[in-house]
């Protein structure tokens, strides 16, 4: 068979192919990524899109947890103050129930209990970032207002709505307790008990009953406060989980789309050697043909 007398197109094609490989390798080294455009590895590119979506989501969950934590910590510490105030009121009530106190003493006690009433009112109307925390979902208006015509001395203007926030895949957390459940549940109504104590101190009768009622209210709030403690614990756990998820996602991103630098650099070196060899071959093939030997 006749030999192809013109090796140049093949040699040049080989040079172009090698050059192309070198370019790809250099791009990988520069970006640290093996998937720079979807066609580099379509399946990996699709996985990376999902990975990026999940990473963005996890980062957002962390931010949202931060916001929710702030609100719930505030609510929790407000409830701590509420229980302290109620204990104080109970102490005052026990003092007032003692048969040795006279009406002047009771009037002084009344004033103190009224002070506690307004303190509790202010705690129940706690705001966080412009929202009334214990108002259910009616967060834009103060849930408790003084109302002398009401038997408990206050009226509840909030609602019984609760919010849950999604803070992870398959993880959603209730973030509030409405005042109607926390403070004003029938039977353990904190403001009613307090008003009863004030009435008792004023009249001198029923103080003991009022103290018992206050005790019930205190227990109820203490019990319900566990909700916030638990939630804050869950938030901590979720934070830890999310940061490990983020790490895993980052690892996956590297595994799927990261450049294997050792391999790439070794490829690059061998491509460069092959390019050099091809170019040398071209240089040498060039010169000789029979015409050179004819005299």
């Amino acid at each position: 068979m006749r030999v192809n007398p013109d090796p140049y197109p093949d040699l040049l094609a080989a040079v172009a192919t090698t050059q192309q490989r070198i370019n790809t390798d250099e791009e990988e080294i520069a970006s640290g990524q093996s998937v720079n455009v979807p066609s580099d590895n379509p399946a990996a590119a699709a996985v990376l899109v999902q990975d990026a979506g999940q990473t963005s989501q996890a980062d957002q969950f962390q931010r949202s947890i931060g916001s929710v934590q702030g609100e719930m910590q505030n609510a929790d510490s407000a409830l701590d103050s509420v229980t302290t105030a109620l204990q104080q009121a109970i102490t005052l009530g026990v003092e007032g129930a003692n048969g040795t106190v006279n009406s002047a003493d009771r009037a002084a006690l009344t004033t103190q209990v009224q002070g506690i009433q307004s303190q509790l009112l202010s705690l129940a109307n706690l705001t966080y970032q412009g929202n009334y925390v214990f108002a259910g979902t009616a967060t834009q208006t103060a849930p408790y207002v003084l109302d002398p015509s009401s038997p408990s001395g206050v009226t509840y203007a909030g609602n019984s709505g609760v919010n849950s926030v999604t803070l992870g895949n398959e993880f959603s957390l209730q973030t509030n307790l409405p005042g109607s459940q926390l403070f004003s549940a029938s039977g353990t109504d904190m403001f009613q008990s307090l008003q009863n104590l004030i009435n008792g101190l004023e009249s001198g009768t029923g103080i003991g009953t009022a103290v018992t009622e206050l005790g019930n209210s205190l227990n109820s709030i203490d019990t319900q406060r566990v909700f916030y403690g638990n939630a804050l614990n869950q938030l901590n756990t979720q934070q830890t989980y999310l940061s490990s998820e983020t790490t895993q996602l980052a690892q996956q991103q590297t595994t799927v789309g990261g450049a294997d630098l050792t391999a790439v650099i070794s490829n690059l070196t061998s491509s460069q050697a092959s390019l050099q060899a091809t170019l040398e071959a071209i240089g040498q093939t060039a010169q000789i043909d029979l015409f050179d030997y004819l005299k």
Partner: protein
Amino acid sequence: MSSLNASLSSALSGLIAEQGALEATTNNVANVNTPGYSREQPVLVASDPVVLDPLTFGTGVTLQSVESIRDPILESQIQQQTQGQGQFSALASALQQTQGNFTTSSSDVGTEISNFFDSINQLSTNPSDVSLRQGVLTAAGNLATSFNTTANNLTQQQSSLDLSVVQTVGQINQLTAQIAQLNGQIGNLQNVGENAGTFVDQRQQAIDQLSSLVDVSVIPTDNTLTLTTANGAPLVAGQQSFQLQTQTSPLGLHDVYSQRNDITSQITSGQLGGTLQARDQEIPAIQTQLDTLAAGLANSVNAVQAGGFDLKGNAGTNLFNPPPVGITGAAASLSVAITDPSLIAASSDGSAGSNGNAEAMYALNSQPVINGQNPTDYYSGIVFNVGNDVANASAEQSASALILQQLNDQRSSVSGVSLDEEAANMVKYQDAYAASAQVITTINDMMYTVVNMSTLTG
């Protein structure tokens, strides 16, 4: 009876023939780097003998013709492969541009979908907060812009491919005119028995170029060629070429016409075929997927909006302007319907502090709202499809380039000029020429002897 004169004429024929053969070699050497040139081979034949009973005498040599060496089957394989090569390289380069839109960046559609849902999740932690509501509106606006930009880029790319269709048709017409003209020149030479090798080479070169542009069928007829597209639309018949025309379609793109017939969808190969495939199939398919995603998102978000209450306790209204019916153009026209952040219907009970509906909207993120897939998964499917199309077209292109290279090697091994061979031929012809010249010298001496004989006798 033989004569010295007869011998002289035989020797002379040798001189002439070898000189002619050397000319072929010279021409080969001169064209060693001419693209598409097929080496020429002198065809030497012994001249008809003279019969003088009982003897037969040769009368020398004739240079019958100079033949161009080529393999027609190889040529037609090269044409086929060139068509494929033209098609896949046009397709691959078009799609490579397309995939730029689907490469992860700070503002690609996938990222903006994430940002949009992230902003809703943030709003859910404090649904009455106006700045968080504004954050959702901004993210929705960015999402719409990203859809718009991507869709517009695709449309722009389609227009530039359309321009390339028109240009390619122009090139095709030029080449077919050139081939028709060459057909004429070849016919004229062949009619008078001349070697038309150079023109045949030029025509072959033009047909190869034409093959890279469009799917050509070559039908050889007496002394000439007829060219059609693979589907039979005429391009060249003998000395006549048939121009292809372009005409604007209702979609604003150019269709290709032959003899008043729309042949756009029949062109499947060559650069024109690849360009049309990208313009009429690949890009519209991506546009449809993008429209499906945009329309699905807009409709599902709007539906959730309608089920909730805004900051003032009113029933929610559309967040996105409703996508067009039939979804075509949904991505290009996606836009946010509201500018007042309080109109986001985050509340499920009418209270400002309720986040129930924001949660419902966030849940769309993981619900099969786009053809049975969640938005991010659907988008990753688009990325996969685009990447896969590019990868396939590039692979086909590389494969056909390799085959084409091998075929060209084969053609070169048949038709290419080898300087070694030409040098050897040159020596061969030169030697033969010298030998013939030596014969003439010898006959001359013999003539001299004969002429002087009379002087001796006289």
